[in-house]
């Protein structure tokens, strides 16, 4: 029985994968000697040495290009992009090369590659180091998209990611790195496309991801305790593949749906889920799907500003009450 932080789970998950499979190696900036800027890769260099834990120059295109090429030969690289915002500097490699090459080659090329990256706000880092970019990957055919909300999910989903034959973008939430969990087994495996029920309830279904899943869970606890509302909370865990069955089933039961996402408003994953729910559950819906999102602004830096921009537990509670009890 060990207490693990989310950040420790990352390094443990990578270490476990590297112990099991000599084909797995790890590449990134400042990841080795220093253990990563979020200290999420501490100990890897010491255990696996420079050949398998590679400190790279500030060359995100070259990092992902090399990881892709290596994966094409059957190796299983894990590449770090320090902040998800930096995906923008290597977006061609991600969206045009890694995602499309299998299809364009008619299946001749397989790319078993994991890109892990620190995502999301809450650290007062400003607009270029705080974005929630799961939707950037979700919109590109050929990418699998993972965003764990707990240490156990980090372990179980990283295990699956490393063993998956397709490219996976693994979004770790910066504001969850310090979160802890008691685990009696760390060798976990969680299949992709399986939402996790964080809270049971029959009045409404709240659908979240990563930090927003945890906040939705807290909101559900408050709603239950103080407002006698029973909210079911689904943590999607992976956007691609998507657990549409669980979503449909739950909405058909509760009749009310709410998505809670950290993405800015336009074209976030919540829009996709909302459109799916409307398409598949229309006759069972008691009202429109509500989308809670970050407003459509770049993220401000000052604490009071950032705190009031990203959806909070209070906001979720209030929106649920409005929805259930009528405005």
């Amino acid at each position, binding site marked *: 029985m060990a207490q693990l932080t989310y950040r420790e789970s990352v390094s443990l998950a990578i270490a476990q994968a590297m112990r099991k499979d000599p084909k797995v190696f790890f590449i990134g900036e400042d990841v080795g000697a220093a253990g990563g800027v979020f200290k999420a890769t501490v100990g890897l260099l010491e255990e696996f040495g420079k050949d398998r834990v590679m400190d790279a120059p500030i060359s995100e295109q070259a990092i992902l290009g090399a990881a892709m090429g290596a994966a094409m030969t059957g190796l299983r690289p894990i590449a770090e992009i320090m902040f998800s915002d930096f995906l923008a500097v290597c977006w061609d490699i991600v969206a045009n090369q890694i995602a499309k090459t299998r299809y364009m080659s*008619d299946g001749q090329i397989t790319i078993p590659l994991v890109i892990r990256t620190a995502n999301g706000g809450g650290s007062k880092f400003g607009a270029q180091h705080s974005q929630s970019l799961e939707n950037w990957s979700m919109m590109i055919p050929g990418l699998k998209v993972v965003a764990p909300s707990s240490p156990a999910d980090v372990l179980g989903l990283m295990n699956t990611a490393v063993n998956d034959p397709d490219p996976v973008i693994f979004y770790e939430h910066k504001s969850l790195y310090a979160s802890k969990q008691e685990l009696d087994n760390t060798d976990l495996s969680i299949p992709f496309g399986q939402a996790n029920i964080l809270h049971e309830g029959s009045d409404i279904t709240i659908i979240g991801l990563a930090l927003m899943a945890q906040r939705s869970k807290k909101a559900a606890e408050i709603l239950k305790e103080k407002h006698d509302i029973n909210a079911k909370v689904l943590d999607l865990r992976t956007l691609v593949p998507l657990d549409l069955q669980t979503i449909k089933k739950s909405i058909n039961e509760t009749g009310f749906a709410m998505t809670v996402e950290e993405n800015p408003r336009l074209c976030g994953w919540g829009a996709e889920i909302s459109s799916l729910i409307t398409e598949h559950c229309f006759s069972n819906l008691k009202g429109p799907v509500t989308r809670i999102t970050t407003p459509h602004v770049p993220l401000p830096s000052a604490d009071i500003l950032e705190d009031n921009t990203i959806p909070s537990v209070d906001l979720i509670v209030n929106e649920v009450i409005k929805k259930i009890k009528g405005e």
Partner: protein
Amino acid sequence: MVDISNDDIGEINRLKLWEMMLKLRLVEKKAYDLFLQNLIKGTSHLALGQEAIAGAFGVALQEGDYTFCTYRGHAHTLARGSSIEGVLGELMGRQCGLMKGKGGSMHLTDVDKGVMGSYAIIGAHLTIANGTALASKYNKTKEVSVCFFGDGTTNIGAFHEALNMAKIWDLPIVFVCENNLYMEYTAISDVTAVEHPAADRASAYSLEKIIVDGNDADEMFRTAQAAIQKAREGNGPSLIEAKTYRHSGHSRADPGKYRPDEEVKDWLENKDPITNYRKRLLDYNIDEKVISDIENKIKQEVEEATEISKSSPIPDTKEIFTDVWADGGYEWHN
């Protein structure tokens, strides 16, 4: 008659080079014909005039080596031994195409032959080629990776990142810049801060400056062999700038009018790699009949392959939905 007493290349390799270049030339010409017959849709970028480069590497490389090329990659693909009908079929979008029409002319891929893809967005494949080279180093195996690209590509960021990484990790890779003097329609000298877009930057990565006449198959072959050997022996990357010229426009739609007539004429009449190599073979005392037998053989091969690809069916539309994922399908939900 030329003195060949000290010849390092030898007749066998020379005939291979001859056969290889001819094949590349004739298939590209056939591609042009098929385009005029409206049998090739989309775009296509011919390497007519640049055959000595892909050809020399094709002869110098071994099975198992990796090559990466651009949208102008029909020749480079054929040079690794891919079938002519696989290439022409792909250009025509037929089932016999290397990727059954899913990739198209700009993305020719034939992994069995080491053709690790053709890349249509400038720069990316230099970084990807580092990856197969890294894998060889990681696995302690001896394959060499070769990455072809154009002069225009030397001005994009990925070029810089890839070269630096290749050098610091001493990867077994050869970067080959085919300097045909133009990007699409713009002269490379108009947009580049140095005279030799690749070679003058070699020192920025502690690499040797290598410039070679890319239209001289022998020189190309020697340069290719040396760089491949260096990489194979674990002595790191090379950057080669091969001077050449494309005979036709940038792509099918381009008549190439931005180039001075004299310049075009000079390259076509005086510097054609194939015309000149034929002369050299004769100078080297190789029998005219041997030379023309090869010509006839290749012509026939190309004609036969053309017929095969023309009669190959168009792909089934259910191909649209295959191979997004390694499980063969495209579903994104349960």
